[in-house]
């Protein structure tokens, strides 16, 4: 470095692909997304196949059919095909010319992203991870119940699984849509579902992977 004295200013830091909030092509799941540019409101779910194209999914309470979706300043896709809301809280993100790859963000650490390598519904007592754009990857979350409900003034969303990790914030506002997964090896992820709601920072309700596939007519990309 000394030979470039005066030409280079070097410093130590933690360089990383900080792309959750401005997820460029090829797009990953777990990105911060919104229907207006340069903003993030919710999280994209796992990457899915539909009609021979890769896209993603998210929650219907964040987007309407036909909405353009952005990740920060970058195009991400187009919302479409929402399942009947509020009994389900699911919507597709069609590519709209964008390129996707079957990988989800899992920063802050180790690794920063995981390839989608499997899919399975969770079992009571199984251990899962969430990866939302705000809280980022959190693991050690126990599935305490299946087939449960979340209700608000809009109505009830049913068939949800419940994940809990006492004393730890596992999902907050903006994490809706976050992929739910379990680590598979050092770089893989078995997709289990997608975050929808919470009844506190430590208890979260999520759609299972079979609900995502059956109600949106998509297939988890592996």
């Amino acid at each position, binding site marked *: 470095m000394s030979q470039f004295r005066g030409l280079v200013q070097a410093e130590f830091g933690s360089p990383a692909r900080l792309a959750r909030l401005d997820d460029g092509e090829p797009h990953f799941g777990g990105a911060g997304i919104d229907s207006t540019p340069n903003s993030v409101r919710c999280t994209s779910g796992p990457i899915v196949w539909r009609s021979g194209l890769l896209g993603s999914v998210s929650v219907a309470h964040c987007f309407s059919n036909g909405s353009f979706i952005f990740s920060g300043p970058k195009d991400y896709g187009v919302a479409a095909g929402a399942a009947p809301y509020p009994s389900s809280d699911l919507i597709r993100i069609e590519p709209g010319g964008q390129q996707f790859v079957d990988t989800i963000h899992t920063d802050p650490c180790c690794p920063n992203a995981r390839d989608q390598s499997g899919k399975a519904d969770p079992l009571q*007592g199984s251990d899962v991870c969430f990866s939302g754009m705000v809280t980022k990857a959190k693991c050690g979350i126990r599935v305490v119940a299946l087939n449960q*409900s*979340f209700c608000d003034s809009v109505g009830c969303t049913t068939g949800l699984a419940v994940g809990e990790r006492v004393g730890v914030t596992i999902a907050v506002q903006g994490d809706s849509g976050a992929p739910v997964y379990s680590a598979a090896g050092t770089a893989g992820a078995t997709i289990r579902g997608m975050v929808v*709601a919470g009844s*506190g920072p430590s208890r979260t309700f999520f759609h299972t992977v079979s609900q995502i596939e059956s109600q949106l007519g998509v297939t988890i990309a592996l």
Partner: protein
Amino acid sequence: MLYKPYAETAILLFAFVACRASSTSDSAAQRAVETVTANTARSSQAAPEGAGASAAAALSSSAGSVQVPPTVEPERVFSDVAPLCGFASDVPGAKGAAGARPKTDWLNTPVAQERLHRVHAALEGLRPAPIGVTFDDSRRTVVVVLPGAFATYVGLAANLSRVAAPLRVALRHSCHSPAEIARAQTLLEKRNWHPQASSTPTAWYLDPSFAGFRVTIDDSAPEVRAALEQKLGTLVRAELGKPRRL
């Protein structure tokens, strides 16, 4: 026909005797458990490092507070004759006598997760259907909650012994019947227990540990919570919070 109180007494007595019989004289199941444990121990000696630690080792790595005499193999499947139906001690995350939360990582090992899958598979198709599975972190035990007398589930203890080791499994009577649970679920789904119930954010799930519903109701509506508790009594444990779509 037996007069109803006498009939209930007879059923309870039969269930108790059956429980004792299944927990004390199921020597075949116990032998099976011991065989599995012995084989596991042998294979762990031969297994290379990183090739999947033995089941026993995987669990014992997270063992801490539960001390078992080294020469006595604990029963892997046993009966919880007295379920915890009160309000006192089984709130998730409740602090124990020592003031510390029970550690939950005993169930997070790959071996424990795989055995848990086997336990769920063993419960499929049982009739009457189990209320569910819950977890006793202080005893590091998987608890299967059953609505019928244990004797109804012929061979279940032996089957669980075979598939679950080294996980410990307890069979527990349900605090409430399936009919009572269904009644509570219907009320929750209809959201008509209070005039504001249908517009108040509410999240709920069935907790097998007391065979009732844990409900979080928006903290702006304590009267909705009170009305629910009045309607459902011991079938519900309601708390105020901030249930929200995220």
